């Protein structure tokens, strides 16, 4: 009987992910609550969570436990300043039934990898506190190193009163002498801060945590021209009056996103980390995720990790479609005339692969960017590849012509071509990052992690190639359109 139940559980575990129409959360065992901002150290990604410890990843896609953070407590944050990492965490507070006396502590380490010879925390300081009665619960710290002034700020607090901000000395991690806390928000917790285009953004989590699939956590944001506020949302409501524009809420199988952390990958690629209170595909456990960060009208909003399907790949530059460089095959019939039909109206079937494939070369076929016509030589099936690694938020993908195994591949001389069959080689694996404007950057795995990576680019209007990604240009941006 037990074995029959076990078999049923295994069967369900196998099929449940296939019910999801969205990208899965991260690979591996990304179980965490209140993750800190993701940091890169010693060739690996790290994040710390409530209760001590944390997660680490070689590639940002597959995560496992192993990060080490002493001190216990709740909801840490990390920032890299110079060649050191400053970690903040809180001890005490956060009580559902009282218990709001807490201290925020900071400590330094030169490395986050516990195997590194430079790993080791030192110089612990208390930088903020709450007495348990005042209108603040000093937990959930978050750093901002102001890129304009170089000053270091720390926000903290929860629903028990105000979110507050204090200034720290970026050289010591200690509170600046004489600095007094400033109230910047209320009705939120798990704050984070970032700066962009003259605006300071204060993000925080609304709703209720820690209730599994019934948690109502959602991430919201306000902005200000001054780092200490007042922070105001898109409706003009101050965060001190409960305001906050939605950044990300529950979707699909993921419930209760909270604890925003900016992950700026450079070249205009921004992502963010959060935890879901419940990943329904993982038994409703709290897990880490990394998602694209988009900007719309000056406000951050969550994008969705690319997850595959069959698409036409549209160049943002010319608006045309990436296609095999083969002869265009006309569909039957021609001019039908204008005006109302004089006879019965019957649908025209779409052109099928079998109608055109026989005339395609059997070896490699070049690519071009052609008229958007929804034809077989323009339809690409994009599929995540298991056990091929990944990058922050996603696995690598293969990109093949719909219905066959002809695969998009990078060449040694920085061109692109299609090969007759997908082999799994790195030049046939593709990294697809959503950019801050919602378009996508498409990069071969062989370029991932390089200083100046080459990406799929429209040279001129109609020629695809690999070229250095220019975040200020539309030539390396692509859209995925349903045929």
């Amino acid at each position, binding site marked *: 009987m037990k074995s029959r139940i076990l078999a049923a559980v295994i069967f369900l575990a196998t099929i449940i992910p296939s019910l999801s129409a969205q990208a899965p959360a991260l690979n591996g065992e990304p179980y965490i609550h209140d993750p800190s901002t993701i940091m890169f150290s010693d060739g690996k990604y790290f994040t710390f969570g409530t209760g001590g410890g944390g997660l680490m990843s070689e590639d940002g896609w597959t995560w496992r436990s192993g990060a080490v953070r002493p001190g216990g407590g709740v909801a840490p944050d990390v920032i890299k300043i110079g060649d050191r990492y400053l970690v903040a965490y809180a001890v005490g507070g956060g009580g*559902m039934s009282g218990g709001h006396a807490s201290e925020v502590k900071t400590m330094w380490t030169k490395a986050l990898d516990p195997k590194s010879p430079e790993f080791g925390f030192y110089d612990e300081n208390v930088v903020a506190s709450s007495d348990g009665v005042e209108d603040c619960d000093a937990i959930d710290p978050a750093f901002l190193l102001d890129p304009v002034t170089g000053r270091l700020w720390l926000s903290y607090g929860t629903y*028990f009163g105000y979110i507050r901000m204090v200034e720290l000395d970026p050289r010591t991690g200690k509170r600046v002498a004489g600095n007094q806390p400033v109230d910047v928000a*209320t*009705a939120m917790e798990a704050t984070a801060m970032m700066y962009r285009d003259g605006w300071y953004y204060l993000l925080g989590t609304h709703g209720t945590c820690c209730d599994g699939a019934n948690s*109502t956590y959602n991430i919201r944001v306000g902005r200000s021209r001054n780092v200490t506020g007042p922070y105001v949302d898109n409706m003009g*409501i101050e965060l001190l*009056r*409960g305001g906050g524009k939605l950044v990300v809420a529950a979707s699909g199988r993921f419930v209760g996103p909270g604890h925003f952390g900016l992950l700026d990958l450079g070249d205009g690629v921004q992502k963010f980390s959060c935890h879901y209170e419940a990943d329904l595909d993982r038994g409703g456990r709290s897990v880490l995720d990394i998602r694209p960060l988009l900007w719309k009208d000056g406000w951050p909003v969550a994008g969705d990790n690319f997850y595959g399907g069959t698409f036409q790949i549209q160049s943002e530059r010319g608006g045309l479609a990436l296609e095999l460089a083969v002869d265009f095959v006309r569909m039957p019939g021609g001019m039908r005339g204008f005006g109302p039909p004089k006879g019965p109206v019957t649908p025209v079937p779409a052109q099928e692969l079998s109608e055109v494939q026989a005339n395609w070369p059997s070896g490699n076929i070049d690519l071009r960017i052609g008229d958007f016509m929804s034809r077989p030589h323009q339809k690409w099936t994009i599929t995540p590849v298991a056990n091929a690694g990944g990058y922050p938020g996603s696995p690598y993908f293969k990109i093949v012509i719909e219905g066959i195994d002809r695969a998009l591949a990078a060449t040694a001389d920085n061109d692109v071509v299609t090969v007759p069959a997908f082999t799994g080689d790195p030049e046939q694996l593709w990294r697809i990052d959503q950019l801050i404007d919602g378009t996508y950057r498409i990069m071969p795995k062989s370029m991932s992690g390089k200083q100046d990576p080459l990406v799929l680019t429209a040279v001129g209007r109609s020629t695809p190639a690999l070229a250095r990604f220019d975040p200020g240009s539309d030539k390396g941006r692509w859209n995925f359109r349903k045929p």
Partner: protein
Amino acid sequence: MNTIRRIVTQGMCVLAIVAIQIYPAAAVNTSEAHRSVAPYFVPAGAAPKAPDTDGFIQRWLLLEPINKPNRTNTMFTGTYVRNAFNTEYFPGQFSVVPNDGDKVTVGNQELMWHALDSTGFNVKLFRFAYGLNKPTYGVIFWAVTVIDCPREMKNVRLAAGSNSASIWWVNGKEAVDLFDDRRMVMDDVVSKRLTLNKGRNIIRGAVINGPGLSDFCVRFIDENGDPVRDITVNLGSSGSNGDDSAVQSDF
């Protein structure tokens, strides 16, 4: 300290003694013996009080919290909240306009009404309960206020935010409900257009909360979304014999 001095100089010695117990000038104190609703509230004054510059109504009669244990706020569906508020806890629950110091009995709780002015735009019910050594979590608060309008005001809306769920009535008619797990957000839910009568109008609210801070903010906004400020709150003119049924409603 200013609060105490004002009360004493008015010669209200008895009230002053009460005020010293309830409204000491010292900041919040963890000791039960010395808890206070200050600095979040001061006693409601005798003179009519206008809303603040953003139109928020700061003067309220607040009933000490009724015990209603709830483990989580995610259970505050419309059905649950309506059932919770439609339960009769004390006589005249939907009609009485109490006086400061009036008492009601709810189960084994003897609860007092307090006429208070919030010092902020929002009414911090958690601080009200905490300051009076009353339960702070798993509770229902009742609030009543009386506003005087210099003229009939058509097409205004009541805008409310609350932590957590709440229902608000204007002149005996339900105007706004805020259900589910909510934090207090200014203008979170806004009523349909309504008319405030020339003269007295009674606003009544009930707020339910499980764990967490309880508070609310209420104001009226006009057709353009601007705050209605030319009204006053005058609890003294209402008296204990006032009730919602005496006010004509023209919804």
